[in-house]
């Protein structure tokens, strides 16, 4: 089994075999993260550039730690997309980075499709760390790894994703990968946050929290961003929390002993109550731990595949 592409761009195009391979590899990398000396020389002398056009602490740090634990030199570049429109184009920026002999460029960009656009036009291996509303494929792999470790397998599980589905790349990547793995996916959120053509995803849309959680094996809560209010998607955090928030009372309606996940950072008391976030059902910190392992696996096979 292997992953034989230059880039890692999308969950949508992964096969079940490739997903299995990535999860297996990530499991092997988990062990390294638990050692006292958390470093292997695999990518010694390789250069990984984190090129982030959007503010991100968690994902960037996770990629940085992953790269460093593999022995690579990791350079972080924060760029502003708005200034990039007027100044240097995205393509020029990446070509310049490539000219400095970067082996892998990890890109987060605010435009859907921007990372694929780059990958199609440069030789360096490109890893998608989130492109617009489109995809965040390493997040979906770490979510699947967390679910597989908690539930033993993936096929046949029911996952409910709750929150802003329409504007979430995490939701998109999760849905593609989960459907490929034979999972049933339900979504719930305010109608303003459900995509108009939601049928295209092959998911079920729930009408209320009870329906959303009742038969779920996994509940994934999405982060509610404050700027959503100015975009007319919700009137207030208070009301959002009352109708769409995950609380102990809602958890009582869940019959299948579901685990609770969240891509972070959590808005405590908005989409997720602290009691649930810190309960035994929560796998949020496992997700963070698995994130490093998944990214180590992805960086390794992209860097090595470059040969």
């Amino acid at each position, binding site marked *: 089994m292997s992953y034989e592409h230059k880039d890692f761009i999308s969950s*949508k195009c992964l096969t079940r075999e490739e997903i299995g391979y990535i999860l297996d590899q990530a499991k092997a990398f988990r062990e390294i993260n638990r050692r006292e000396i958390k470093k292997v020389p695999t990518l010694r002398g390789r250069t990984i550039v984190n090129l982030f056009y959007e503010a991100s602490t968690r994902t960037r740090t996770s990629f940085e730690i992953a790269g460093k634990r593999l022995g690579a030199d990791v350079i972080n570049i924060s760029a502003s997309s708005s200034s990039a*429109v007027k100044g240097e*184009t*995205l*393509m020029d920026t990446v070509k310049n980075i490539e000219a400095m002999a970067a082996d892998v460029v990890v890109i987060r*960009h*605010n*435009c*859907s*499709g*921007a990372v*694929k*656009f780059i990958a199609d036009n440069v030789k360096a291996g490109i890893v998608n760390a989130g*492109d*617009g*509303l*489109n*995809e965040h494929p390493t997040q979906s792999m770490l979510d699947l790894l967390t679910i597989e470790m908690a539930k033993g397998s993936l096929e046949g599980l029911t996952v409910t994703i709750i929150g802003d589905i*329409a504007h979430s*790349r995490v939701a*998109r990547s999760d849905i593609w990968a989960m459907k490929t793995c034979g999972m049933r996916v339900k979504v719930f959120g305010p109608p303003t946050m459900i*995509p*108009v*053509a*939601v*049928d*295209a*995803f092959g998911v079920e849309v729930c009408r209320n929290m009870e329906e959303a959680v009742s038969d779920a094996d996994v509940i994934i809560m999405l982060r509610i961003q404050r700027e959503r209010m100015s975009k007319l998607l919700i009137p207030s955090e208070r009301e959002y929390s009352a109708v769409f928030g995950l609380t102990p009372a809602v958890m009582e309606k869940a019959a299948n002993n579901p685990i609770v996940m969240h891509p972070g950072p959590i808005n405590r008391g908005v989409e997720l109550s602290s009691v649930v976030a810190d309960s035994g059902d929560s796998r949020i910190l496992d997700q963070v731990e698995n994130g490093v392992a998944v990214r180590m696996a992805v960086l390794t096979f992209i860097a090595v595949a470059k040969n």
Partner: protein
Amino acid sequence: MKTLLKNCKIVNHDKITESGILIENETISGLTCDAEADKVIDCAGAYVLPGLIDMHVHMREPGQEYKEDIESASKAASAGGVTSACCMANTSPVIDNAAIMNHITARAREIGLIDIFPYGAVTKGMKGEELTEMGDMTKAGAAGFSDDGKTIMNAEVMRRALEYARQFGAFIASHAIDTNLQGAGSMNEGSVSAVTGLKGIPSESETTVIIRDILLARLTKSRVHICHVSAKESVELIRWGKNEGINVTAEAAPHHFTLTDECCEGYDTNYKMSPPLRTEKDVEAIIEGIKDGTLDCIATDHAPHQADEKFVEFDYAPVGIIGLQTFIPLTLRLIKSGKLSWTDFARAASYNPAKILGKSRLGCIAPGMQADITVIDPECEYVFDGKINMSKSSNSPFMGAVLKGRSVYTLKKGKIVFSL
């Protein structure tokens, strides 16, 4: 100077006749094969249409001559079989006064390949606030008035513009897209936008403005022309307006009856248009609308952009494609598939535009008419490449594609301005 076109299959809006065409100087003097002429062109196998009139072209001059100018647009037009074109007012500066308009018509005459009928802006600087001097511009040769590229979002401004234009017998061409509903969207809202994560633009952004403008045309007893119709419901609203006797005309662009939003799946910015490419049902409705006359004309919305400008993130790419030289081959696809007839083509690409623009000597091949003629070889196959493309820009998904059918002779006022 006499020119004789022999063995012509003459396609007019109402019928096809087989005859010859005798041209004396600038005018068609007779439909006959038996005449002495200085020059004889054998048109056997070809279809001979009245010169195509493209009501929607962005020529970019003045201001963005690196994308296109009047000369390159004229060359692309004549090579594409277009003998008259309306250029849009969204130049820099905006064509919002007679002085700029005079510059454009003067340049067009100097180049002499095609007639250019410029649109004047509806509002000063296309800001959507104050009306332009429509009377002055009508005298300078304005085809009509349009803020194309921008929507007149204030209904009161649109109402007054329609009312005022009536005084000069002019029409307002509406770029009908509600900018609030459009938002930051970059493609059609639907399953493809859901899947690609590209922000969607619902058809309702178009239909809500179209019905507003149709109702305002009724209110003002004025003429409104709907630009680049992209959605099925838009066709239905226009059909309703016409049935009500409201003075509404409309156009559709070849890309809107050829391509769908599925083309956006690979984030290729050559498929980013405004209004966006929609779905199969919309394509079918537009073709139906052209067929039954709801959509009066086919207009290309020729929108040149430099390669660098299109080689960016999909969200940041400018909208539109060049279209003058794909006008004929894309429309011929509909004729080949039996969805349109040759007479439909002549009606939508020449006869109706001439009527809308009030050009009584254009749009028809008949004695006494101006000798603007497009001779089309429908079987001619070629790769649309940099050698054939006459535009300064090459932003088209059909670049490099094998196309079928093109103009082999384009005649403007009896003069051959393009021949293969």
